[in-house]
């Protein structure tokens, strides 16, 4: 009792043996000592700040990794048009006045584009078998396209084979986009709608369709997928590949025979493949594709070189556009293949060079226009390089204009102009590649390392937090100070060498420089005392589950099947918990355990629950999990799987009767949810409190449920509304959701304002208590008297209340209910969760309300099951075991899936953006993003906010255990004899008995939860970076990483909010006690 303070006053009085005797410990009582309360407040703040700092470490890791992994590019919607040349200056000679000419006169009126998926360069390379000294190699894919070889040999001026250099990511969708827009598609092209499968940018096809339609065909595109499939299935070294390539050869041969003179044939591979037949990454084999041009008329001035030329793949786009007499697509950054513009072999060298220069100049003008527009729209490109390029362009352009005016000296200057133009185009492309299309391995590794470091901190600090010597303030202030110093130094350094400040790097530098001193400090504090082996505290079974869960992220099949794998894991985990309880002997009556082998005593603590109880909980949990699994959405492209029909909104149902039944079920789920929460609050007695939040729970929550039900009725039956009511209905469907959200927000505000939901009768009871007090000590004058008074008030109130209850013969947990202090924290958290759940429920389809009900039931059962395994420690250090935190995180993931979500972009519930805004949002983007995000990450948020319940619940369950044990004796007389011992359980007030331990436990809980989430995001990041060449990287791993990352951010914010709420309640309870004291003092 050495360190008692005002916050403890509430509970300490019950330790007084009798009222006459003044406890000696109370001499040192420092009730209103500012210092100690300030101490605790500091500790609370530092717990929150410490968690926020760890979150910051995670965030910087995530952003650093993302900036290296997910390259973004802004999609511009501008279009090139015929009437609008890309730059000033006259159109090139010969283009004016010709029909069908746009920026340039067309050379071909038609083009046949044969796109062979995954046609690697060496598949098409002609085989020169007569290399002396080398043994002839015979691989299945070599030399199978013999028609190309034949054409190249017979008609060297008509055809040309190129090795086209593909930009990663080498996946088909991205390649097709590149081959039509001439740009570098990245994984996320930040456009108006990134889930769309249509290209919104300017592209060749659009230019073709907008060109004058002559009634005949202009372009024929054939996309052959056979080679790609064969590669995925068998790999390139399989005889099947030879067969497939020979088929392709026949196709090309047939086409060549039927070509007319004004038609150009293009055979192109969109990407290559690795030796296993995969693609998607950036290895040499994947990025080298074949490109073959053929025209029945002579196209090239010279014979083909021995080794085919290497050109970027996007060069095809401007070349084709100009050859067909079309404008180059607006966003193209490819460079035209100059040699095809030189005319036939008999033309003058000067005029052919001039034609090349004009094509290049047009191209350069277009690229310059694009760069100008792009850099105006975003600051993605490096300003310094952009400036250099612009200078280069203006010089080349001036030279070109000068050359056009003075055709006499052209021979000398023409090559330099061409070289300048080409230099500009290549520079522009290189700059774009640098900012759009290259994985930055350094950043990815740095991000992963930061994430790992943050996980390590979580693990270490969670072990350390509950030990008594945990230095809160120095451990926090030192890293923050160092982080700030590091960031400033970095910023100043950058400023002195005039580089652009990269916020991502700045954050990373700050994180690292705050991490290192923490590590040093921790090492100094930790290493001296304990061996490192205790650093790995996760018990074996939990570790096994965690490892399985992490391994899941490395397999695309498992990521796709995670919706089924997570309930399976959760079920296993639950059964494991039950079995473990049994194994530890906590479920068996001790009689059975006396038999075991010699030498060891059976168990020290008697079982608190019988086996059937835990088994019931476990089976109930399994049942809930299975039922929630009925609401699953299939990932894409799984033919066997059928999505649940219950995920669709009721409005899409046809049958009136079924719809009504479902509507009834949904409303019943709402009512059940409401009733369950109210019942729980009544069970612990908090419902009787006259505080505003409780009034809100009693009246506001039903109102919210009513609003939700009415909204569902309106939305699901909107088609059947008579016309004259239509305006009313549409008005109501705007107002109702907003009203529900407003109610929830006001409820939360009330909760934050007055979070102590206890029944205080102090005002009314004051005069009577005084009369009770006076016989003992008279009006309180000194501090000691005051300490003495409070217990009496408590006692008096309790007796009075008990007497009243006995009179009214009401039932229920009388002793606990008297003051409701035992559940004051969890009541606040549960109320907050309910208030949060209603608006989130509104964003989902109606029938998901059943899942929400299951969610609450499930977490209730899980909490009880976990609490059965946690012994109630009377006075610190409190701790939440790892299995509790793991099961909680696992359940959050399971609920994410059972609310009809999948970690892929097409599965996002976009309709959530229109709840309350049926007409859309106009230009506002953050609000729909918020609504859709709240829909998607609802389960993450709810479980994170509810995380403190893991710490609180065992204390709540204490009341049950005690009452059960009291029932058998149940002797009134005995209870009267020993009123002090038989007192009601302290429940959560045990936590307040040791506030230091309480805050440490909260910190530990937060760190553990962050660790579990953090290793998940770390595993996702590692999977995405290790498997960045995997076929499914952009389809499975990258979306999974993004969803995990956003989920982590939402969860961490929710966690901070939940812990802050508990601390707010704690503060309010303190001030409540203080007020009680002050009121007594007067």
């Amino acid at each position, binding site marked *: 009792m050495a360190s008692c303070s005002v916050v403890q006053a509430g509970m300490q009085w019950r330790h007084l043996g009798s009222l006459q005797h003044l406890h000696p410990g109370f001499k040192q009582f420092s009730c209103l000592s500012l210092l100690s309360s300030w101490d605790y407040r500091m500790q609370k703040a530092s717990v929150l700040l410490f968690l926020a700092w760890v979150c910051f470490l995670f965030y910087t890791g995530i952003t650093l990794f993302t900036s290296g992994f997910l390259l973004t590019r802004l999609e511009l919607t501008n279009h090139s048009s015929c009437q609008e040349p890309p730059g000033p200056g006259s159109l090139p000679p010969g283009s004016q006045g010709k029909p069908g000419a746009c920026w340039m006169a067309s050379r071909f009126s038609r083009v046949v584009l044969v796109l062979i998926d995954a046609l690697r360069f060496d598949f098409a390379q002609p085989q020169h078998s007569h290399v002396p000294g080398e043994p002839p190699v015979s691989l299945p894919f070599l030399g199978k396209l013999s028609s190309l070889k034949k054409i190249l040999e017979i008609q060297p001026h008509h055809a040309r084979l190129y090795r086209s250099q593909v930009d990663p990511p080498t996946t088909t969708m991205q390649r097709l986009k590149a081959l039509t827009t001439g740009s570098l598609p990245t994984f996320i092209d930040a456009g108006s709608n990134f889930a769309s499968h249509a290209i919104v940018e300017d592209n060749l096809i659009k230019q073709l369709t907008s060109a004058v339609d002559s009634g005949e065909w202009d372009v024929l595109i054939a996309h052959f997928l056979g080679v790609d499939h064969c590669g995925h299935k068998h790999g390139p070294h399989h005889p099947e590949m030879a067969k497939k390539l020979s088929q392709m050869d026949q196709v090309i041969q047939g086409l060549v025979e039927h070509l007319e003179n004004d038609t150009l044939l293009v055979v192109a591979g969109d990407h290559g493949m690795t030796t296993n037949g995969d693609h998607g990454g950036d290895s040499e084999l994947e990025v080298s594709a074949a490109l073959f041009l053929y025209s029945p008329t002579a196209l090239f001035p010279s014979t083909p070189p021995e080794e085919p030329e290497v050109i970027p793949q996007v060069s095809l786009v401007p070349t084709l556009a100009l050859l067909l007499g079309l404008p180059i697509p607006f966003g193209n950054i490819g460079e035209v293949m100059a040699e095809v513009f030189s005319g036939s072999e008999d033309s003058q060298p000067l005029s052919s060079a001039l034609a090349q220069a004009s094509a290049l100049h047009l191209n350069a003008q277009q690229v310059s226009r694009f760069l100008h527009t792009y850099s105006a729209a975003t600051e993605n490109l490096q300003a310094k390089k952009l400036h250099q390029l612009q200078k280069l362009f203006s010089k080349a352009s001036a030279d070109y204009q000068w050359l056009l005016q003075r055709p006499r000296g052209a021979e000398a200057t023409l090559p330099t102009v061409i070289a300048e133009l080409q230099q500009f185009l290549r520079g522009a492309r290189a700059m774009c590649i640098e900012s759009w299309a290259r994985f930055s391995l350094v950043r990815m590794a740095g991000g992963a390392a930061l994430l790992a470091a943050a996980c390590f901190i979580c693990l270490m600090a969670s072990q350390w937090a509950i030990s008594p010597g945990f230095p809160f303030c120095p451990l926090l202030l030192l890293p923050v100070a160092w982080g700030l110093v590091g960031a400033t130094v970095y910023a100043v350094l950058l400023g002195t060498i005039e580089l652009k400040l990269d916020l991502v790097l700045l954050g990373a530098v700050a994180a690292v420089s705050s991490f290192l001193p923490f590590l040093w400090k921790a090492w100094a504090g930790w290493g001296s005392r304990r061996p490192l082996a205790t650093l790995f505290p996760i018990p074996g079974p939990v570790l096994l589950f965690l490892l399985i869960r992490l391994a899941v992220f490395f397999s695309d099949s498992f990521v796709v099947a995670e919706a089924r794998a997570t309930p399976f894991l959760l*079920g*296993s985990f639950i059964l494991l918990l039950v079995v473990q309880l049994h194994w530890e*002997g906590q479920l068996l009556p001790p009689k059975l355990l006396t*038999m075991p*082998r010699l*030498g060891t005593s059976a168990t020290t603590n008697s079982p608190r629950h019988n086996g059937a109880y835990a088994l019931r909980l476990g089976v109930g949990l399994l049942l809930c*999990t*299975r039922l929630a699994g009925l609401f699953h959405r299939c990932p894409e492209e799984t033919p066997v799987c059928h999505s649940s029909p219950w995920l669709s909104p009721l409005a899409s149902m046809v049958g009136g009767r079924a719809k009504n039944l479902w509507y009834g079920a949904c409303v019943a789920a709402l009512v059940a949810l409401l009733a369950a929460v109210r019942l729980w609050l009544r069970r612990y007695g908090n419902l009787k409190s006259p505080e505003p939040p409780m009034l809100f729970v009693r009246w506001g929550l039903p109102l919210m449920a009513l609003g939700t039900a009415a909204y569902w009725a309106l939305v699901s039956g909107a088609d059947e509304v008579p016309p004259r009511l239509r305006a009313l209905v549409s008005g109501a469907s705007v107002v109702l959701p907003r009203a529900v959200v407003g109610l929830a927000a006001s409820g939360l505000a009330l909760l934050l304002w007055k979070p102590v939901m206890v029944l205080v009768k102090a005002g009314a009871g004051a005069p009577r208590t005084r009369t009770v007090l006076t016989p003992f000590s008279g009006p309180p004058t000194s501090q000691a008297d005051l300490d003495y008074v409070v217990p009496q008030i408590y006692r008096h109130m309790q007796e009075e209340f008990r007497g009243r209850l006995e009179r009214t013969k009401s039932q229920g947990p009388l002793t606990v209910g008297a003051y409701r202090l035992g559940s004051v924290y969890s009541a606040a958290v549960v109320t907050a969760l309910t208030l949060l759940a209603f608006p989130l429920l509104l964003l989902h389809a109606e029938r998901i309300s059943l899942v929400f009900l299951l969610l609450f039931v499930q977490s209730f059962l899980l909490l009880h099951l976990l609490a059965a395994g946690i012994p109630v420690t009377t006075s610190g250090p409190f701790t939440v075991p790892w299995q509790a935190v793991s099961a909680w995180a696992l359940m959050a993931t399971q609920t994410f899936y059972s609310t009809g979500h999948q970690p892929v972009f097409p599965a996002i519930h976009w309709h959530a953006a229109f709840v309350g805004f049926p007409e859309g949002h106009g230009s506002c983007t953050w609000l729909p993003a918020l609504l859709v995000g709240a829909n998607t990450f609802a389960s993450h948020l709810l479980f994170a906010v509810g995380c403190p319940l893991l710490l609180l619940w065992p204390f709540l369950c204490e009341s049950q255990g005690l009452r059960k044990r009291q029932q058998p004796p149940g002797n009134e007389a005995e209870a009267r004899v020993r009123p002090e011992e038989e007192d009601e359980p302290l429940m959560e007030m045990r936590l307040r008995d040791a506030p230091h331990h309480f805050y440490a436990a909260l910190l530990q809980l937060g760190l553990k939860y962050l660790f579990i989430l953090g290793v998940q995001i770390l595993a996702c990041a590692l999977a995405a970076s290790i498997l960045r060449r995997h076929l499914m990287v952009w389809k499975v791993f990258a979306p999974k990483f993004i969803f995990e990352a956003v989920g982590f951010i939402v969860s961490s914010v929710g966690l901070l909010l939940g812990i802050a709420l508990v601390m707010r309640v704690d503060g309010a309870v303190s001030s409540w006690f203080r007020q009680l004291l002050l009121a007594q003092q007067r």
Partner: protein
Amino acid sequence: MKDTDIKRLLYIHLLCIFSIILSVFIPSLCLENFSILETHLTWLCTCSGFVTAVNLVLYLVVKPNASSKRSSLSHKVTRFLKCCIYFLMSCFSFHIIFVLYGAPLIELALETFLFAVILSTFTTVPCLCLLGPNLKAWLRVFSRNGVTSIWENSLQITTISSFAGAWLGALPIPLDWERPWQVWPISCTLGATFGYVAGLVISPLWIYWNRKQLTYKNN
């Protein structure tokens, strides 16, 4: 004394393994087109029958806990009937647990039930043979420090490894290898079988290895 017991245990376990091997080969002599994967249900039935028969015979021959006080006929009959009911109960409860774990409710019900039967054969039948229809004894054996003889110890190990095998068998189902055994419940039954066999092999070795530490109360 100990070593002879362990030897007996080992021989009995080898016999059990032999019965499983027989259940693979004997049907292929009688039936045409028999293979474990193609005619999986037939194999399940034969395997279950063989293992049950061997367990019963061994129980009658070896009698590891011959401490039954009453041995009247009626007592034996009620005991046998009780065992049958326990077996059926365990089959049904396993079936329910599989469904709760995500097995389809209606389709493939027969397959699921046969999986429950074979898992019961690997776990419940030895328990019934050794401990009799006595739930409290079961609960005692499957808790820490609850075993009282090497028979119970080996029972504990084989049962746990059967469950673990069945559980691990479910893991490869989602993978896209497109193998014929990656189908519910074939991978699980195979996993349970391998787990049972592994338990049979491991338990004598483990007991032999730890024979110094293992001290049972009634020995």
